[in-house]
């Protein structure tokens, strides 16, 4: 492994680990220590305490479990749905493909996070609704990518040969097309994870995601903005963690893109 990939990979491993094992650690993210309210990391222990006196270190470690869950479901659902819809429509062509292009154009007419904010706001706060909102917004990108890829592949010789041999449609899409378009889709999904994590944090920051007292880095930043002057650590701790993770994903995503030689999103 390239030495320049070590630290971003390390951060992501830590993050994933926190997301996966947090429930089994004896964390007390919601334990209230009234005598330690807003205590800073300098005087208190660990990473300091927040406004009701909850330990920030425990909340920081407990947070990724939520974002992780959301990212898992959103990226999973939207990439599968988007890829299937996009590739079948490109392969089938005709009316369905034209319809899909219009639907994609329509969804792209909304700046992504705006539609997510509106949907989450209207569906009501909560994790399930965040997943629904982000999936409804997210599938379009995968559908567009899969469609474009399949369009450029469907006249290749091996596909034409499969058609000539009478291979069923579903099998052609699965065996001859999806395998070839998986590389750019994996890159898209890797960026997608970072995007979903930021979007979830953004929605939680706006009060539309995770509901108190549950911890999410976004809601921790939200809690902290009210105590910026007296307890800046409440905003700095989750924010730095968040930037580190997104930075790591972007760095590794770049490398992955270089390695798989996929052309940029431009």
């Amino acid at each position, binding site marked *: 492994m390239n030495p320049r990939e070590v630290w971003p990979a390390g951060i992501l491993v830590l993050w994933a680990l926190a997301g996966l094992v947090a429930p089994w650690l004896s964390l007390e993210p919601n334990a209230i220590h009234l005598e330690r309210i807003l205590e800073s990391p300098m005087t208190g222990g660990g990473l300091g305490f927040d406004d009701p006196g909850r330990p920030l270190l425990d909340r920081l470690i407990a947070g990724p479990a939520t974002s992780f869950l959301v990212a898992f479901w959103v990226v999973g659902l939207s990439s599968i749905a988007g890829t299937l819809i996009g590739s079948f429509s490109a392969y089938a062509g005709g009316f369905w493909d034209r319809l899909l292009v219009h639907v994609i154009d*329509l969804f792209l*007419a909304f*700046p992504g996070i705006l539609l997510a*904010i509106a949907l989450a706001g*209207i569906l*009501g706060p909560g994790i399930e609704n965040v997943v629904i909102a982000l999936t409804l917004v997210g599938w379009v990108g995968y559908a567009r990518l899969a469609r474009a890829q399949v369009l450029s592949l469907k006249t290749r010789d091996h596909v034409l040969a499969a058609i000539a041999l009478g291979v069923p449609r579903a099998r052609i899409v699965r065996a001859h097309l999806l395998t070839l378009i998986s590389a750019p889709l994996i890159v898209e999904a890797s960026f997608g994870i970072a995007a979903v994590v930021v979007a979830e944090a953004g929605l939680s920051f706006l009060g539309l995601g995770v509901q108190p007292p549950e911890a999410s880095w976004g809601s921790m930043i939200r809690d902290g903005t009210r105590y910026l002057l007296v307890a800046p650590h409440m905003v700095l701790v989750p924010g730095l963690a968040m930037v580190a993770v*997104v930075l790591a994903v972007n760095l590794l995503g770049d490398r992955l893109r270089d390695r798989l030689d996929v052309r940029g999103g*431009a």
Partner: protein
Amino acid sequence: MRLLLRRLIATLGVVLGVVVLVFLLIHLIPGDPIDVMLGESALPADREALRHALGLDLPLLEQLYNYIDGLLHLDFGRSLHSQRPILELLVERLPATLELTAAAFAITLALALPLGLLAAARRGTAWDHGAMSFSLIGVSIPHFWLGPLLILVFSLWLSWLPVSGREGVGAVILPAITLGTALSAILARMIRSSVLEVLSEDFIRTAYAKGLSRRQVLLRHALPNALLPVITILGLQLGALLAGAVITETVFSWPGIGLLTIEAIQSRDYPVVQACVLLIALSYVLINSLTDLVYALIDPRIRIGIRVGAGA
């Protein structure tokens, strides 16, 4: 001319689709929207009155017809919360959002142009690495953290700028930086790769061969050509700016459309939410269509219908 007409029809189609989608938003409310707005303990008479006022007792198609008819007369309905016409609220809040996005856009260009150009001109040097590191960090910092961070440093610690609101000179600076940083990071990167691509073309060698200075070649020959592909991306990214304004305005209590959206969501004032989303989405559609047109106007290759690059 035909291009213009085709674009116009396509844009109208998208606009209609956006309107229908925004109209349908209110029907996505789980259960009875009236319950959500008034609470389940509301009196039956009040519920029916609201249902009637919102037209929710009519068949869906008739509701849609009324909604579009209202929009054509610039009638967005009334706010459930303040009872004021929504158009009034929008007009009141729009200038703040325009000021914020314009300032953010100015900051974006002021940062991205020199950074991208410098990185390309000094490819592989410390300048390049520095600019690209800035770009990487810039895209990785979310608005909702950069905002509080800037408030902490420049408002609370240094007391240079106001914490929030739109009062006084300089109030727009921090929100604009918050909103513009990510975009300038993305743009700097694009300008760099676009300039690098142009620099490898024959006419650049010709320009050098006829004795032009490096500066002249970069500014007069490379930059204008490199900016062409950047413009299309810019349109899309301006939309991201409008959406980012929702979070940025919330962070800074900046009294624009974005803050209005969040306030309306919090007070379950769904007609206002619909109107705000519609306004932002339609501005986005408009900006993108204009970008396409500008692109066609300044690049003759597109005007005469030759496809450039990998068109779908």
